[in-house]
């Protein structure tokens, strides 16, 4: 395959960025999208030019490190698929592809396509945990958990923290990310003691990081590579309301 790539190049956080076009040929449909970028980078380096910076690591769709807006869509056109799991057979010969970083003021660009998502860490640090020091634990089967609840908790816990939900949202809201964490713990008996405090603290931190508010457009669910449901946001809203009204 032969492709034209329009790629965002930006030397550092404070530098001006711009789109630059590259032609790549000899692309195999069996390559992953990132392998296609590897090919481009190897060729750039062979010419003595700087390669395109992008984040990635596991290349198995689980570490949440890869990102990229591909033709305006986070992680590209394929449903429930991270960029690293997207394959070139989903594109056609001669196609023009636009590749940009996540665009959100809370995710500043590090270089080219790599962004800084440490805001997510700070949200979790504020409340995204169950306080159970090592050694505190009772026997694992002491508290049975209905399979249904365990399954919902697991659905929510599947979030990989990639930030696609923020990138797609017109308000750059982190609500799906926050809701997934709150819902994961909120569905487990172990998560009850800190349930309301957790919600308040994470939402406050998301605000402080400059993420926007949720206006229920629900593009996030469609963009999420793990298909985290917006139902978790509804739950988060209920818990948040309850916590603020009744001071729970």
């Amino acid at each position, binding site marked *: 395959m032969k492709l034209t790539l329009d790629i965002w190049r930006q030397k550092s956080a404070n530098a001006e960025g711009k789109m630059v076009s590259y032609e790549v040929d000899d692309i*195999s449909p069996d390559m992953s999208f990132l392998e296609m970028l590897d090919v481009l980078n190897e060729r750039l380096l062979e010419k003595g030019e700087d390669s395109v910076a992008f984040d990635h690591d596991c*290349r198995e769709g689980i570490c949440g490190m890869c990102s990229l807006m591909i033709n305006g869509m986070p992680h590209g056109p394929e449903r429930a698929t991270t960029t690293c799991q997207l394959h070139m057979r989903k594109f056609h010969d001669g196609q023009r592809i636009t590749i940009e970083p996540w665009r959100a003021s809370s995710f500043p660009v590090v270089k080219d396509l790599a962004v800084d998502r440490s805001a997510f860490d700070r949200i979790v640090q504020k409340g995204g945990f169950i306080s159970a020091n090592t050694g505190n634990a009772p026997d*694992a089967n002491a508290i049975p958990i209905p399979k249904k609840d365990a399954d919902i908790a697991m659905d929510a816990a599947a979030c990989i923290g990639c930030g696609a939900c923020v990138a797609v949202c017109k308000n750059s809201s982190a609500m799906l990310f926050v809701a997934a964490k709150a819902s994961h713990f909120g569905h487990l008996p172990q998560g009850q003691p800190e349930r309301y405090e957790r919600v308040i603290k994470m939402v406050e931190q998301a605000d402080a990081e400059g993420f926007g508010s949720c206006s229920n457009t629900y593009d996030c669910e469609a963009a999420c590579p793990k298909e985290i449901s917006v139902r978790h946001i509804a739950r988060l809203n209920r818990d948040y309301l309850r916590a603020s009204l009744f001071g729970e």
Partner: protein
Amino acid sequence: MNLDSKIPSGPLAEKWTKHKFDMKLVNPANKRKYTIIVVGTGLAGASAAATLAELGYKVLAFTYHDSPRRAHSIAAQGGINAAKNYQNDGDSVYRLFYDTVKGGDFRSREANVHRLAEVSANIIDQCVAQGVPFAREYGGYLSNRSFGGAQVSRTFYARGQTGQQLLLGTYAQLSKMTSNGGVTLFNRKEMLDLVLVNGHARGIVTRDLITGKVESFAGDAVLLCTGGYSNVFYLSTNAKACNVTAAYRAYKHGAGFANPCYTQIHPTCIPVSGDHQSKLTLMSESLRNDGRIWAPKKAGDQRSPDQIPENERDYYLERKYPSFGNLSPRDIASRSAKEACDSGHGVGPGGRGVYLDFADAIKRLGQKVIEERYGNLFEMYERITGENPYRVPMRIYPAPHYTMGGLWVDYNLMSNVPGLHVLGEANFSDHGANRLGASALMQGLADGYFVIPYTLGHYLATSGQGKVSADAPEFKQAEQEASERINKLMNIRGKRTPTSFHRELGLLMWHKCGMARNEKGLQEALDKIPAIREEFWKNLFIPGSGSEFNQSLELAGRVADFLEFAEVLCTDALHRNESCGGHFREEYQTADGEAKRNDADFTYAAVWEYAGEGKRPVLNKEPLQFDNVSLSVRSYK
């Protein structure tokens, strides 16, 4: 080299309890006066950092990732073992201990393995308390499966995302301890060197991956939790950034590197599809519970699998190992696949693959059940290959996956360099020559949650070292050396990319020191590696500068260390004149092609000591003593 294993005296089952009592404690009020440097925030590092902070120590935690949640542990799929015996199927601490020692082909330390089995149950309790959503039965109790060649169901799992959920559990705990100041977290900072003062490990030199700034950090002890070195083969199931640098730098400062030749090749990975391949994807071993592995009986058979009748298929694992069949341990399953392909029976591009077929399971259980069990894995396979495994059998081939070798540690997880502790995949301790499935997660968390919090206190209480600061000359010198090395890499200004060297080395290692090794091939590798290294230092190209975000520079530094470390690995493989576990030497096999151990001469851990630039490393031995299990031939027939 002092290799005192410090195994406590007394009966096996009482050693750890006794040792916990015998060790010195640090007074609670004094703990905050100690700074502990933890490098790596995977399962081992994050659990250690969080737990030590809970105890009151001041912890500095480092990772090259942008967040601790990205560590390679996240990718583990299958599960984590624990001797809970919830299934009432005959499991026990002793059985887990025995299985692990046998699975490791009798090349691990009995006392360590027994401790691992003892604390395994606490790990599950701890994880559930943190909210890890393990799979459950309808009654609400935890579900288990059998995994990786075990005959009891002792594996806990969270769909196909066990590693993710365990890591998110430790990450949450680490985050909590970060917000209350117990842990100071340093993201995107890569350790480039270890700093010794007075012979004790007292700190590290790091490079900030965003600004390029080289600086150092001092403390009272250093914990390396930096993962394994499978990427020495370039193509492996490990995440792209996994590397040996931290461990190798420690080795160059005198830490012994134990059994580097024990590398595990996982049997069920998606085969290579072309030269562009950047990594290999593991398909969880749990697939072997229902899938049947076969290759065409006729060499060179080009027919599509549905055209090959039943009697022309060779279900070779079922044939060769009737009692374990498709669930034979990893080393055995991998080697059998290689044999099938080497003799011309392979399928798919280049004949490097065998079938993993679910047709019978679908017939027996229905597609819905298979979907429930493996749905996400089937989807992943289809995404990568474009083939639907419900209709066409999967194609699989072995790939480097895990490294049993690592820095030598004593029973307290301390290396021979005082103060330098090593946890998780980075150490050599518990898996001998071959690791059983679902045991790495268990070991990483055992080390971090339940071993180091005790043993580190003992070191701190007895080491008698004063305070040092990062202004000490030892630190300044190490910083300067690290900067010089970066400059040296930057200034080569040659023509070849870091990846091209990594690929070249990886291919050589895979062919000469991969699934099967022999003297001639290893000798060839040992001749060729220095030549690749020389070319690397003459003809490498890195764009830009060292004082910016520079992914080529990061990679080049790691490849440079792989290029030296590979020689240690091959040297070890060449010296071990036996086949055991993941180390298969073609010269040492039985008439029917099984691994032949040589207990009389090789029942020891081979611990390699750095002897200087260009010098052959020096071999040291820790003899292994088996008081409780008798060495037997590992038969899975």
